[in-house]
């Protein structure tokens, strides 16, 4: 069980939780994830570790309320317990070389850049973050990101804040020398179409790029194999071999398809949760 010590609404559907998890916080590294379960009979879902505080034994996770479990998680309040939380899982980021690293966060993926960019900055890299959202109200954690990296570039689809356009368009400008300049390395975390677009943007210029894949998982320890992805023609388990992979080698088409395996069931589950809430007179 992990007690919620802080809860913040970042947008109407995005919540930040800081939870008490001393063992996980002590072992956590940037790039890793945890698995949570929020009720008996509930599913196990992976969530990227946004940040950790070893001294205080706390872990920060950011959740976008899209399915049954994330919505339930969103209803938990300060002082509540997350029923099960296990981790850290997956491999930490492996980036020994120094240089200009650009982290790209799409939507709530920006949260996962917090500990990642702080660590990369601490290792002596020059760091830039590009975060993007549909409009300025959906941008999250700008102040926090500014503290952990050298430059923060903001993009919105409608131009309500920062650069008007997609993160990949801004990335292309950086590659051409604009702003903080050409990246030596890129890390992208966010929705699959965004990561795929980033991968295409850096492929031709041969800029090493990592993406953080979030396939469906059950156990998160290599036991079920549900999270298999094809990377460079080889089958990998994202939970133990990833979740960060060489973007230019990932079979995105397959990854996108596999993530849609349970679309019908996910909708049925959400409808049922909504019914239950109505029946209970909540919301």
């Amino acid at each position, binding site marked *: 069980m992990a007690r919620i010590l802080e809860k913040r609404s970042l947008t109407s559907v995005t919540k930040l939780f800081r939870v008490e998890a001393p*063992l*996980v916080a002590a*072992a956590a590294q940037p790039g890793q994830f945890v698995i949570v*379960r929020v*009720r008996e*009979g*509930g*599913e*196990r879902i992976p969530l990227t570790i946004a940040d950790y505080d070893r001294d205080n034994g706390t872990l920060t996770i950011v959740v976008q309320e899209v399915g*049954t*479990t994330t919505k339930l998680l969103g209803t938990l309040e300060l002082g509540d317990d997350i*029923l*099960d*939380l*296990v*981790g*850290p*899982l997956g491999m930490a980021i492996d980036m020994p070389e120094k240089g200009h690293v650009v982290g790209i966060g799409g939507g709530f993926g920006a949260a996962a850049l917090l500990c990642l960019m702080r660590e990369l900055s601490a290792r002596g890299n020059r760091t830039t973050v590009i975060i993007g959202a549909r409009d300025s109200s959906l941008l999250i954690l700008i102040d926090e990101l500014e503290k952990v990296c050298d430059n923060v570039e903001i993009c919105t689809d409608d131009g309500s804040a920062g650069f008007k356009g997609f993160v990949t368009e801004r990335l292309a400008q950086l590659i051409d020398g604009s702003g903080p300049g050409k990246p030596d390395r890129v890390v992208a975390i966010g929705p699959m179409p965004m990561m795929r677009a980033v991968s295409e943007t850096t492929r031709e210029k041969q800029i090493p790029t990592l993406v953080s894949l979030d396939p469906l998982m*059950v*156990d998160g*320890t*290599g*036991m*079920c*194999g*549900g999270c*298999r992805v*094809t990377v460079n023609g080889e*089958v990998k388990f994202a939970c*133990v071999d990833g979740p960060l992979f060489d973007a230019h080698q990932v079979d995105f088409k*397959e990854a996108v*398809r*596999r993530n*849609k*395996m*349970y679309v019908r*069931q*996910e909708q*049925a*589950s959400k409808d*049922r949760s909504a019914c239950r809430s109505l029946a209970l007179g909540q919301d």
Partner: protein
Amino acid sequence: MPLKRVDKTPMPERDATLRSHDFVEVNEGYNIARARFEAERCLRCQDPVCVAGCPVKIPIPDFVHKVAAGDMAGAAKILRSANPLPAICGRVCPQESQCEAQCSIGTRFVPVAIGYLERFVADWEMSQPPGDPPPPPTRPEKVAIIGSGPAGLVCAGELAALGHPVTIFEGLHAAGGVLRYGIPEFRLPKEVLDWEIEQLKRLGVEIVCNVIVGKTITMDDLFGKMGYSAVFVGTGAGLPQFMGIPGENLNGVYSANEFLTRVNLMHANDFPNADTPVMVGKRIAVIGAGNTAMDTVRTALRVGAEKGMIVYRRSDKEMTARVEEHHHAIEEGVEFHWLTNPVEILGDEEGWVTGLKCIRMELGEPDDSGRARPVPIEGSEFVIPVDNVVLSIGNRPNPLLLQTTKGLDANQWGCLVVEDESAQTSLQHVFAGGDAVTGAATVILAAGAGKSAAQAIHEDICQ
């Protein structure tokens, strides 16, 4: 001397048509009358050869005689002193190839139903009110157990009985390991497992879930800041193997581990009351013919498949599943495609499984395993139309602990290397047993390994 029946006293079973749609246990268990009647069949041999066939050397005739005499408490005491998980082993042990294979009656007639009697006695014990709580730990040396499967549970119970404070670390959110996520409810009701775990807790064993040794904490942490004197590694064999044929990543393809975990651990059979789904179409092919394959195909029928098939490259003679599981699967309408080897999983344009392309096989000379080697018949490819494919072709030990534990030696298959007698690994005070050492095997072998390792650990840390 009473007259001996030549046949086993039949095990009452639920009707195959009804049971293949629910998860209630198939075997209903003996009542006292049947149990005593069956126990009377024992010949009381001077040299009880059955004991030699038991991996944990249960004094079988002794407990069987107690049953015949109606002394169930006495039977339970004998049984539990030799096998800490009798209610589980009585249900899932392959008795026909162990104790019952040796039974003297078996040379001319049908062996005594030792497994059914074991289960009867354990169930009787479960129905009794709990006795006085055992005394608290008496020894200062703490032991950590990694993994709460059969090896870990038994090792924990034995060490607690020897007076040690014991903590089990389990990676999942519920204890039991393969007994929880692997073996289905209709073969091993989870209340039986819960009861066994409850007994351990009464003995003072602490179970900590959601901790993965090798990730959350390290082996060094256990010995260092956490102060354990010894560690037992019972992490099982949970890494699923795939065949490497085209189409394995299509939607609708599962490892048996995933399929069974979704149902057994996550209760996908109760979706959407439970939140985890499992995707089952009308026709499902399970590749492999071990107990896990039988569990998978029978589970598939229970979660809605209309047609369940076993596809196996060898013949029924080489299958590794227990006779009883095979028999139950036949009764429930499972189809068997023997001498059939999958070569490709076919899918539609959207990436969903549509068929399993196979090639027919014939048996050739014996291979390394002593079983006839299956050889493909050229030009015999054909397609079985299916909506799901589940691979049940074996598991290897999980490498997570190995990756972060320096000096812990494993062989080329990832199985931990231990000394035969002591179960000691290449690291001092670290012991191991069960599937993590042998590769995927049986519950009773794991239980036996846990038991003997407990003794070795006790001797190691009490020197």
